[in-house]
């Protein structure tokens, strides 16, 4: 009796027992979709629950993560950056070393196995920077399934190398010209495709957003990041970190790192949003710092919107953070105060991009550079016995054109 009470209290105090069975994280999340899609997301929920109980599914996924994606990814002590900043010891979780160059592969491998279990024969996805599109095209090629990737026409222009990569992998990239032709519009178009092709199509969502059960599924598949960090830091330092930091667009790499640490309440957790040109302008994507709760793309979450509930377009130098919403679990973690969310400006991210490249010989993605920039601000204020871990969610090769342009070197026209 006493034990079960204690368990119940522990449950109530846990940050790791959401969503509830309706898919809610507090007031956030849910299933705000057209009726046509309801039977599909209910089917997905059931298929996922069954898969989770199946040792064969776990086994197959683990093998793919190990031998195909190259996991576990390393936890690397950034010695020179630590010396340079003169504060806490900095560790980098090297998701950039995964196959396809980012954390996106973790979720794609999990979901393509689900799609196969559900008998779906066609894969669709949305992409912003192209990282999720490339990862989806990759797993589709690996399993011989046709793949269509929706990508805003604006993003197609600024991420040409990834578009070509997807084409090479056999995927069809459909440029989306509706709305403002970025990630939000690509997601609308993917939903329209799904609702029109329900019988054979699996929608492989790349971020921890969308209708339930997607935020949970993506979080679970990405939690491999935090689970590995947990044992790696214990092995290397004999103790847990004092602070963990990750960039948040939709928030899949961040929730993957954060989730296993949520109940270790003495660990500070920081999510970094795209501050763009600054929050006083409308040119940013800091939906949690500067937005308000609303309903879009199947879930209630913090959004950039006007007073009439119309969604605003954001801006970020990083196409992967250029989304006016955020995963519902982050909205909930913000509202509970468990995670602190802060903005980092475009130029700060670009400076961190250069710093990491020069000092550690690692070219980070512009998304991850936001998290690095925040670490650069915090580390000098922390004592040398403290440990800080940054999720280096992806490699920056895709961003050299963008950064080149900002530094006055236009490579795209040079080739």
């Amino acid at each position, binding site marked *: 009796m006493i034990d079960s009470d204690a368990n119940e209290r522990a449950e109530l105090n846990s940050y790791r027992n959401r969503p509830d069975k*309706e898919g809610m994280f507090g007031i956030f999340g*849910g*299933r*705000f*979709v*057209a*009726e*046509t*899609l*309801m*039977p*599909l997301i209910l089917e997905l929920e059931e298929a996922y629950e069954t898969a989770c109980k199946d040792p064969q599914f776990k086994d197959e996924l683990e093998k793919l993560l190990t031998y195909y994606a190259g996991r576990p990814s390393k936890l690397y002590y950034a010695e020179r950056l630590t010396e340079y900043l003169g504060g806490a010891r900095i560790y980098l979780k090297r998701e950039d070393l995964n196959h396809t160059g980012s954390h996106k592969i973790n979720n794609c491998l999990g979901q393509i196995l689900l799609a196969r279990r559900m008998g779906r024969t066609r894969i669709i996805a949305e992409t912003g920077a192209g990282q999720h599109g490339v990862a989806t095209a990759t797993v589709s090629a690996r399993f011989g399934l046709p793949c269509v990737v929706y990508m805003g026409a604006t993003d197609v222009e600024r991420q040409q190398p990834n578009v070509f990569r997807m084409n090479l992998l056999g995927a069809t990239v459909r440029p989306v010209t*509706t*709305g403002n032709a970025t990630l*939000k*519009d690509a997601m*609308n178009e993917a*939903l*329209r495709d799904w*609702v*029109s092709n*329900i019988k054979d199509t699996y929608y492989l969502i790349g971020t921890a957003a969308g209708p339930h059960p997607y935020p949970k599924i993506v979080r679970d598949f990405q939690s491999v990041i935090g689970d590995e960090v947990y044992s790696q830091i214990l092995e290397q330092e004999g103790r847990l970190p004092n602070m963990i930091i990750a960039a948040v667009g939709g928030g899949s790499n961040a929730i993957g790192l954060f989730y296993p640490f949520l109940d270790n309440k003495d660990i500070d957790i920081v999510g970094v949003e795209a501050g763009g040109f600054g929050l006083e302008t409308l040119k940013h994507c800091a939906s949690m710092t500067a937005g*308000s709760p*609303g*309903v*879009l*793309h*199947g879930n*209630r979450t913090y*959004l950039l*919107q006007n*007073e*009439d*509930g*119309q*969604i605003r377009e954001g801006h970020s130098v990083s196409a992967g953070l250029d989304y006016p919403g955020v995963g519902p679990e982050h909205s909930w973690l913000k509202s509970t105060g468990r995670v602190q969310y802060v903005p980092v400006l475009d130029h700060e991210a670009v400076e961190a991009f250069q710093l990491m490249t020069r000092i550690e010989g690692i070219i980070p993605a512009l998304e991850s550079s936001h998290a690095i920039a925040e670490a650069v601000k915090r580390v000098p204020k922390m004592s040398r016995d403290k440990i800080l871990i940054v999720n280096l969610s992806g490699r920056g090769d895709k961003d050299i054109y963008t950064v080149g342009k900002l530094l006055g070197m236009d490579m795209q026209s040079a080739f």
Partner: protein
Amino acid sequence: MTTRINQTFAALKTENRAALITYIMAGDPNYGIALEIMKVLPQMGSDIIELGIPFSDPMADGPSIQAAGLRALGNGQTLQKTIDMLQEFRKNDTTTPVVMMGYYNPIYIYGVERFLQNAKAAGIDGLLIVDLPPEMDQELCIPAQQAGINFIRLATPTTDDKRLPTVLQNNSGFVYYISLTGITGQSLTDMSDVVTSVNHIKAHTTLPVAVGFGIKTRAQVEQIGQVADGVVVGTALVNAITATLDSEGNIRDDPVKTVCDLVRELRLGV
């Protein structure tokens, strides 16, 4: 409660014909003309009006209705102005049912309670909110019914026997059967499926069943009208309005007259 929607379907039953339900986007191409069009719709034979609430991200709509919504928003349409439009309409028409159709976010941001109060005062009869399935009934469906507003639900070709009772529960006014899986504005091809589905739904409910999505011509209205209690035409009206505009959205032909001609023609189908 008895609403204008209930009365209209009851009256049509005695006439032994289906309802012609027409959709327009509030504020397209601008507030004034949209209001004018709304006012003449009943005179041209429209039995029920669906008034679209513009939204920046209409996930279930095709290119025509998306563009209409963006045009309206570009011309300053807001949810408040859509309520105002209804209030203006009601000054001359106290009998034609009006169903507001759209997505949840503008209502959520306006405030559910405030919206229900103001929309009711303006003369709303029903609500059809695309992204609020039965699982989300606490959000708006139940408060709306308590405020005396019908909540119209979508049934689709994916609604199987297991799902149908869930969809019909808390549904009032009429059931809106989407005749194809997909977005608005596509073409309807398989009539026999529609007949089977409508009869199937009717076996489970006493509510009238209206059919929409993909219905554009008088001939289709006539065909559907023989099996369903209502026929919804949306994209065809929006396209007719679009055809009177140039590529910048400036009016070069008379949108009111164009819509009148179309609706008068469609009405001959029921």
